[in-house]
């Protein structure tokens, strides 16, 4: 589904990703782990199309299409959604407008009409309940005044409503207490599907107790230096990253 080949990315002149390659198939959950500054967030940001990242070489394809040639919204409409580490506060834009505009954009891209109001409301209320959120939040501005946990739940809510083919979640566990983490993890697990892939970017293994990945990759200094199954994450938890760094340098 997603194929990243020998990706080199620079930000403000310094190279962050130095030849990253990664293949994710439908139905798989991948976790990218690594020490701070390894370039973990850069990968998902480049896939989502954030400005300020220059791809100097390499390629990203999604279902065979060249992602780097696509506009930001085209990437979302193709089925790639990024859940942000620091969700942006958008004062004045009500959540309900965002969800409706995004859902209708997706439907339009699939040749469907706008979703009828009652159907939309039912869908939203189901998903809100699933994320244990209060329905009053629909009339609130996107992320404005939200706690850290509420912002993360909101990112997952958007995923539940928009049902991407590839859900990328950047440090979705940061700043969450254990209860909020369970809700977020349950939400992510409910997205698991044979037709869908999930990419988790995380610094800590803790999240992976709740969302068990099929593949774990260790990112060090802009390259994936080691890959394994969920067991690798546990090793990293107990032994830290240094041994992987040393192993890769050897």
């Amino acid at each position: 589904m997603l194929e990243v080949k020998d990706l080199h990315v620079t930000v403000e002149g310094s190279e962050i990703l130095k030849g990253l390659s990664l293949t994710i198939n439908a139905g798989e959950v991948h976790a990218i782990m690594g020490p701070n500054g390894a370039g973990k967030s850069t990968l998902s940001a480049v896939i989502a199309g954030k400005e300020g990242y220059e791809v100097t070489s390499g390629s990203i394809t999604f279902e065979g299409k060249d992602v780097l040639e696509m506009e930001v919204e085209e990437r979302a409409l193709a089925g790639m959604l990024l859940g942000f580490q620091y969700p942006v506060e958008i004062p004045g834009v009500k959540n309900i407008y965002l969800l409706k505009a995004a859902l209708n954009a997706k439907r339009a891209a699939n040749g469907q009409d706008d979703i009828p109001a009652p159907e939309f409301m039912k869908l939203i209320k189901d998903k809100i309940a699933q994320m244990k959120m209060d329905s009053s939040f629909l009339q609130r501005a996107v992320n404005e005044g939200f706690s850290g946990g509420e912002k993360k739940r909101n990112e997952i809510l958007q995923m539940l409503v928009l049902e991407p083919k590839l859900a990328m979640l950047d440090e979705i566990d940061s700043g969450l207490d254990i209860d909020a983490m369970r809700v977020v993890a349950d939400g992510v697990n409910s997205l698991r599907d044979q037709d869908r892939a999930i990419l988790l970017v995380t610094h800590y293994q803790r999240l992976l107790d709740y969302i068990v990945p099929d593949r774990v990759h260790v990112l060090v200094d802009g390259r994936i230096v080691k890959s394994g199954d969920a067991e690798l994450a546990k090793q990293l938890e107990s032994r830290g990253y240094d041994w992987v760094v040393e192993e890769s340098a050897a």
Partner: protein
Amino acid sequence: MSDVQSDVTRFLERLAERRAERAANGPEPTWIAARRQAGAARFEALGFPTRRDEAWKYTDVRAIARGEFGLAQDAEFSKASAAALTLPIDAHRLTFVDGVFAPALSQLDDLPTGVHLLPLSQALAENHEAVGGPLGRLTGVEFSPFSALNTAFMEEGAVLRLAPGCVVEKPIILQFLSRNGSQPVMSHPRILIEAGGRSEARVIEHHVGEQEAANFTNLVEEIMLDRGAILTHYKLQEAPIADLHVASIHVEQARDAHYTSFNLNLGGGLVRNDLISELNGQGATANFYGLFYGQGRQHVDNHTLANHNAPLTFSNENYKGILDDRAHGVFNGKVVVKRDSQKIEGYQSNANLLLSDRAEIDAKPELEIYADDVKCSHGTTTGQLDADAVFALRTRGIDEQTARGLLTLAFAGEVLEEVDLDAIAERVELAVAGKLPERFNLAGLVEAAVALGDE
């Protein structure tokens, strides 16, 4: 070029005709005649303002000066079309059609004890001396040529008096309807509000009319708030696009009086608002919230002034403007802190969005401080939408134009968040969504969401 003097003469001739009509209806109190005379004399001396006058530097009023305006003789308006224009709010209501009181479109039953709400003509007939004192006390003929002209013509408008301690549950709507008649007309309404100590009310002043109307409204409002009175004043200006609208609003606030203004300007071809508050007693607080949306060749000029005449007084201002096409906006906000008015706080901000290269804004925040222990800030920005927010919306599959539309609507929404009457906030939000350029394509989205919100 039209001759400036002949413009003034034309208005004075119309005044003379009106005076003759009134004389046929019997005698009037001499003080009214004298004040009208003083207004006429002042107007004649001043003439219409020109762009050489500092206060009118960015606003050209020749469309008014050159107009051939009659005076409405009746208040006929079909009930059905009035109903379509009236705010769907359970309220006490006074309606004026082209300045003429319309009893049939008013709702004055069930006024609570302590609330006196009546047309000026009736207040004058019942007890003219009670009106004579406050009328013109805040807005004299010296204020501007338009206040002088208003005084020269004054005969109708709204009088609201609240007894001390009177809390009015329902909003009070002062509705001004503009008709599409055979000839453009002008009206010079007065609004007089006297709120007793600790009284509380919400007043909605609503200007709206028939789409093709092209009339001139020249309004003077005087609002006197006694100790601890609380007044929220919505001015919802949705006048027809060819209407000309000039309003001078003067507020006087005693100790602990709170005045909150929502100056929401969506309509009118040429609009000028002057909003002035005199903060005369400690604890007096004035909130000025404003929103203006201009498109086509609309011209909207807002001048505000907060006079901190006493220590421990507070003013807070937030005006937002959105301008499209060749619209022109003016924001001039001034905070004046008098000598020895210590420990005051005066905050002012103005932000504008230009949706077209040919739209124009002239923004001028001003501070004059003659005390040393004060907290004041002011700023004005004319800017761009938050790029991070645009990106965040696009990552959800929302195209860039719709994202910009949502953010532009949100820009207006920041003012509406303060509005505690949902019917007004929703109406304005829908109106703004509907006015936003087609490329943003928001109307359906927002309409549906508002309907959903009602569930």
